[in-house]
């Protein structure tokens, strides 16, 4: 009981002593304040950035291997004719080989990407039109939120149906369901049979007309091939580029995460044999994920060191002020010792003052540190995540800084000779 009362009194006394020099106390707290605030803010921004990156990678599927067509470098194409057909990329034969010859591949899905205008009455935009198979949803883990995805019947009957990405559906038909609407894609009309869930939850407002909406529209592979052929015309600054690309992407789902690397190697080898030029790339999301995690780890170490240094500087500032305070209050220490204070009383008194300073700075720092991410999210439109551990960690660190950097001044105070201390002016 008396111990508790004693500590309460010591804390109150510590606060009173600090209040004798308000400006000094505030300035001293600033070091810890900014240290703690930067710890929290940097952790929140770092966490948000890496979460976003990892989310994107995860959406590609950690058990997938993705093959992509890549346009070969300009100089290899030769000539500068204004009109020619450039043929490159993955072929249907590549897709079949990947699907059939690798036992670890559970499923494989080809994707063709078409450049077409998508229109519903007077609203139109240029999303990515993807021609693909019904298995696309199984491999990529995408979810239909309304209606259905493409079916094998659509594929067999070369049906004029399409599935809209969420953003596209919201744009074309903001006030009612797009289901059953006749959507004009390129030259022909397609019946909308489904709408996909967005990849990441979006803000609820519909995109304003005229904005560059990047979205997706899915059509059956056979239908895509029938209406749009293999050759696509791109008009670029006066010249016309014609490209022949059979498949833009092939998603291969591997049976087990352990086999992802093996399948990736096998695909590279297989494609290397079939392709004369490097007009493809093999993307392994799992590898990207691991790399992103490694990057995050390094990022955290760097942030941790910066925060550590600022807290160290803050701690040294506190120690400096406390040493000055101890010298300034030598006489008080002498009086207290003469009146019966034991060394531990003096240690406690000064340690409590230091901890009050650092914890006070720490609490203000936490408040500021929680405000910064809100500002960043608002002004810089970056995602931030404040993990509950961050303020707790910051608080513990600030208290620790107080104890560590307070020990030496307190020890100095406690070990003064009472006779000399009393004589001190």
């Amino acid at each position, binding site marked *: 009981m008396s111990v508790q009362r004693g500590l309460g009194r010591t804390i109150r*006394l510590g606060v009173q002593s600090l209040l*004798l020099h308000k400006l000094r106390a505030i300035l001293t707290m600033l070091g810890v304040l900014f240290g703690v605030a930067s710890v929290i803010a940097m952790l929140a921004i770092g966490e948000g950035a890496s979460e976003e990156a990892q989310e994107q990678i995860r959406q590609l599927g950690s058990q997938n291997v993705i093959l992509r067509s890549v346009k070969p470098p300009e100089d290899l194409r030769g000539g500068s004719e204004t009109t020619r057909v450039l043929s490159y990329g993955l072929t249907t034969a590549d897709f079949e080989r990947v699907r059939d010859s690798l036992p670890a591949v559970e499923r494989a899905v080809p994707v063709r990407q078409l450049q077409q205008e998508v229109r519903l009455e007077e609203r139109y935009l240029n999303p990515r039109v993807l021609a693909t198979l019904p298995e696309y949803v199984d491999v990529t883990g995408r979810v239909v939120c309304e209606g259905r995805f493409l079916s094998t019947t659509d594929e067999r009957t070369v049906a004029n149906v399409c599935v809209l990405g969420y953003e596209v559906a919201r744009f074309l038909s903001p006030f009612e369901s797009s289901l059953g609407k006749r959507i004009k894609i390129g030259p022909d009309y397609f019946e909308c049979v489904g709408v996909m869930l967005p990849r990441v939850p979006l803000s609820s407002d519909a995109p304003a007309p005229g904005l560059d909406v990047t979205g997706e529209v899915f059509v059956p592979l056979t239908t895509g091939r029938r209406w749009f052929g293999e050759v696509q015309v791109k008009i670029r600054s006066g010249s016309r580029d014609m490209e022949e690309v059979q498949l833009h992407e092939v998603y291969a789902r591997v049976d087990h995460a352990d086999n992802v690397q093996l399948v990736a190697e096998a695909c590279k080898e297989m494609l290397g044999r079939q392709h004369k030029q490097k007009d493809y790339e093999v993307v392994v999301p799992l590898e990207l994920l691991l790399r992103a995690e490694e990057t995050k780890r390094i990022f955290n170490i760097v942030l941790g060191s910066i925060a550590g240094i600022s807290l160290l500087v803050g701690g040294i500032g506190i120690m400096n002020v406390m040493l000055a305070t101890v010298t300034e209050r030598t006489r*008080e220490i002498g009086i207290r010792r003469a*009146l*019966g204070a*034991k060394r531990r*009383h003096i240690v406690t008194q000064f340690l409590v003052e230091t901890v009050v300073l650092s914890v006070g700075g720490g609490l203000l720092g936490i408040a500021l540190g929680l405000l910064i991410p809100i500002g960043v999210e608002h002004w810089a439109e970056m995602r931030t995540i404040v993990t509950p551990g961050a303020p707790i960690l910051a608080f513990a660190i600030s208290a620790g800084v107080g104890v560590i950097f307070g020990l030496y001044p307190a020890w100095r105070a406690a070990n003064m000779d009472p006779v000399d201390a*009393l004589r001190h002016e």
Partner: protein
Amino acid sequence: MANSAELPVAELRDVTRLYKMGANEVRALDRFSFTFAPGEYWSIMGSSGSGKSTLLNILGCIDRPTRGEYLVEGEMTSTLDDDQISELRSRQIGFVFQSYNLIPQLNVLENILVPLIYQDDPPPDGEDRARRLAQRVGLGDRLDHRPTELSGGQQQRVAIARALVNDPTFLLADEATGNLDSKTAGEILDLFDELHAEGKTILLVTHEPTVGRRAQKTLRLKDGRIDEVRENRGGA
């Protein structure tokens, strides 16, 4: 008051205190032996360098003899560690300083309570006692004032209340009237007389003969030894 069966409040046996000043050794106290009996009122006098400050520090247990033994109520102090001797100070010694030495951030009541908060087992009625003592020295209505709001004489009264709060074995006053004008000093000395009459043991260190004569007995030091022991007429 003095009773031969009672233990002496303070006893010095062959106490020597040496200071090293560079290569030289200064002998502040030289094989000094003396006994203060309970209820006595002593003034300790001597010119500067006579060793009276050293004697005061040893009596107050904030300094230790180089050789010899100092006993407080029969308890040997040489065997006590720092915590134990601090506890002894907080229980048995009542310090009154020349420059009052109140703690500026504490109010009158809190200042009086300081010796008690450092005791291992503080008395439960400490605050009542502090209030009564504040009343006793005439500052019962100033309990929440800060030292800076008081006159010198009032501050010294608070300091005396503080010195009495632990019901000490003896009161140790170091030039307690040195910073006061003669009228206020007289009032403080009257207070000492009253306390003596109540049976308190008072050891008053001073260099002023007029103050020294107010005590019952005077111990005069010279070169770390006893120069003179004298009973003052008019002492209580």
